[in-house]
């Protein structure tokens, strides 16, 4: 009997096309959009080769250090910083107007000057490098002046200073983490959204059993089948569909879209299981506690889920961090944040303390809502419908 009920409940849910679209396919569509829009951002944020121009004039010809420095910085190797064109001022202006270069350099009597179109990181770096080369020339000239009486040639001193300036004896040890791609966060909150959207399944399922919500509910209420069996079988069927949805999303994002969930597949799956349970219990609670129509119940689920996902960084990645830092209590009660945070900790941290805290929080959240729902659903009677 119990098995039959599960199958019937499963059929009821799977035939509801709108429900299946929102819980199974909408997250996949959204993940595809995220991937198309965000896949290039991390690469775009890396320092790329900057297109610039230098105006050819007599002063440039006489300043071989300046010219050669830019030729060196524009030569094709892994440290290439610029792609430099030596041209006339008119051409450079046109290139700048057409956004083909970020700026051009003019050497005049007072030293180099820079002409750019916008203030941004590329023009700032260009300005900084010009200053660096200019400052190096000053160091060389000052040292030559003070060393003029010593028994060495100007060339020797220049070459020595240039070699000092190109490699210092101070080492910079980089201990940056490899996992710093914050574009993972929208995908993590998408997993949270899918888990919590499962609540819509819970709403639909409970409504099938409530006599005041549907004709099926009226028939079920007068049937001899125990209500606990009906509800439990409905919940299991909803949970199966929800797990299907979240597994589909995780498979699609990790295998097709190459989203990094960390190396521990079991823990990722466990988080999916617990997150889905939280979503389902949320749906059951909304369905049983609020005496409103199905549209309103679904509206509550979607609104709360979207608000939770917004606060956990779906639209603005840094928002979760800001809330965690300044008003941590908000995300402490936000199931979307618990799921996002769990996935983030699997991606970023070596220890699992934060992960287990999130799992425990989700379990407590689910348990509380299920207890509330049971209290509300028990011995429900209708004088008239």
């Amino acid at each position, binding site marked *: 009997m119990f098995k039959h009920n599960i199958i019937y409940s499963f059929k009821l849910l799977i035939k509801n096309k*709108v429900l299946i679209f929102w819980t199974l396919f909408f997250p996949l*569509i*959204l993940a595809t*959009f995220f991937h*198309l*829009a*965000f896949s*290039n*951002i*991390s690469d*775009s*944020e*890396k*320092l790329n080769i900057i297109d610039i121009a230098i105006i050819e004039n007599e002063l440039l010809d006489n300043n071989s250090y300046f010219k050669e420095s830019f030729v060196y910085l524009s030569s094709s190797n892994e440290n290439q910083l610029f792609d430099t064109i030596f041209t006339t001022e008119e051409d450079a202006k046109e290139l700048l*107007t057409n*956004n083909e270069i970020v700026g051009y350099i003019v050497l005049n009597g*007072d030293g*180099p*000057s*820079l*002409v*750019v*179109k*916008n*203030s*941004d*990181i590329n*023009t*700032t*770096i260009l300005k*900084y490098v010009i*200053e*660096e080369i*200019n*400052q190096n020339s000053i*160091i060389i000239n000052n*040292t030559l002046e003070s060393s003029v009486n010593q028994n060495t040639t100007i060339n020797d001193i220049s070459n020595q*200073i240039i070699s*000092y*300036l190109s490699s*210092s*004896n*101070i*080492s*910079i*040890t*980089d201990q*940056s*983490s490899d*996992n*710093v791609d*914050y574009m993972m966060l929208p995908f993590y909150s998408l997993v949270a959204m899918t888990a919590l959207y499962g609540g819509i399944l819970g709403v639909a399922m409970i409504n099938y059993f409530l006599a005041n919500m549907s004709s099926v509910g009226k028939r079920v209420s007068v049937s001899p089948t125990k209500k606990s069996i009906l509800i439990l079988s409905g919940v299991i069927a909803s949970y199966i569909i929800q797990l299907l949805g979240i597994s589909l999303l995780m498979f699609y994002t990790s295998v097709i879209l190459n989203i990094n969930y960390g190396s521990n597949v079991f823990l990722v799956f466990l988080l999916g299981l617990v997150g889905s349970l939280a979503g389902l219990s949320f749906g059951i609670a909304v369905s049983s506690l609020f005496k409103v129509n199905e549209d309103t119940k679904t509206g509550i689920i979607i609104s709360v889920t979207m608000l939770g996902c917004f606060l956990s960084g779906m*639209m*603005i*990645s*840094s928002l*979760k*961090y800001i809330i*965690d830092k300044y008003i941590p209590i908000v995300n402490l009660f936000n199931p979307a944040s618990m799921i996002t945070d769990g996935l983030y900790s699997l991606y*970023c941290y070596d220890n699992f303390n934060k992960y287990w805290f999130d799992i425990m929080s989700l379990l407590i959240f689910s348990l509380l809502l299920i207890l509330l729902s049971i209290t509300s659903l028990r011995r429900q009677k209708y004088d008239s419908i």
Partner: protein
Amino acid sequence: MIVFKTYLKIINKRKWPIILYTVLLIVFGSITISTSDDNINFVASKPDVLIVNNDDSALTRSLVNYLEENTNIIDTVKLDNVDDALFYREVNYVIYIPSDFETAFMNDDNPSITVKGSGDYYASFGEIILNRYLTVANTYLRLGYDKEDIISNTESVLSNKVDVSLINETDTTTLAKVTYYYNFTNYSILAGLIYAISIVMFSFNKKMICYRTEISSLNKTKYNSYLLLSNGAFALLLWFFYVLLSFIMLGSVMFSISGLLYMINSFFFVFFALTLALLLGKLKLDKNAVGGIINVIALGSSFLCGAFVPAAYLPDMVLKIAHVLPSYYFINNNELIKDIVTFDFGSLLPFVINILIMIGFSVIVILLTNGIGKKNVNTNE
């Protein structure tokens, strides 16, 4: 008038999603607008740097002063949260100066500094700045100068700056904000307008309502033209409201030629959205399916064409696909306006071409709608 009144009644009943899309526009617009100040002078970009200085010495104080001049020093991050701060870009670069750094530096005893970066260009720039100070100071050390001279010479040399001039006389920073705002309207217009019009058309196209209208004394041509006018008026009202919002949020820049171009561009896009909404209304879709279709159309075109993420960050392949969507030409025009230095035929030509393409899309959709309309009439008969 009765058609228009009914139209307003239905819109009023379904106002919340439209309000939601507008609130989203205000929220995202406000976040962008508050990010930087208006300027027409060059302003150097600065990485956000956290310094953990374990060596209180003259040399490290000089280094910290130099970093303070060239970076934004962040001191609100707890050391336990450094990795989180780097991940969420509160900090781009963290510099750990070890104790006895100055002693090791002066003895040329392999001094080392540990760093952590966020992996973006700001982190790279942070490293360039740190390296610059250390290299110059180390050069003076190797040239045989004492500590005081190393510090004073390094500070003196590094204070030499370069003049920067901007060829743009327009305020590109503010125009970038306007562009962002109007790019985001792509989502609000598509989602809001399509939702409202298709829901209204859904109500008017219900079988029983159609029958009642058919037998009423109201002339069918008049009825259709009232309905079309009501839809047009609603679209115009929505456009006017979003333009008004841009004046309130972005201020004086909207009273320029650029501001006028943004308005013209959005007007033609609203016209396209109206034609699309009418087409969807004619399709007689299931009420529950409308939500899904709107989300796929509005979110899809917004993500693919650069309404949420600037088009410059999108992969080439995505932008190529986006060419088949009118949103691409709307957003492309917004980006074009931002970069126009002088307003002449040459600079405005791409803008006009994009407008013509949007009109072309609208005409195609109108023809499709008429085709479907005729088919429906035949079916009813």
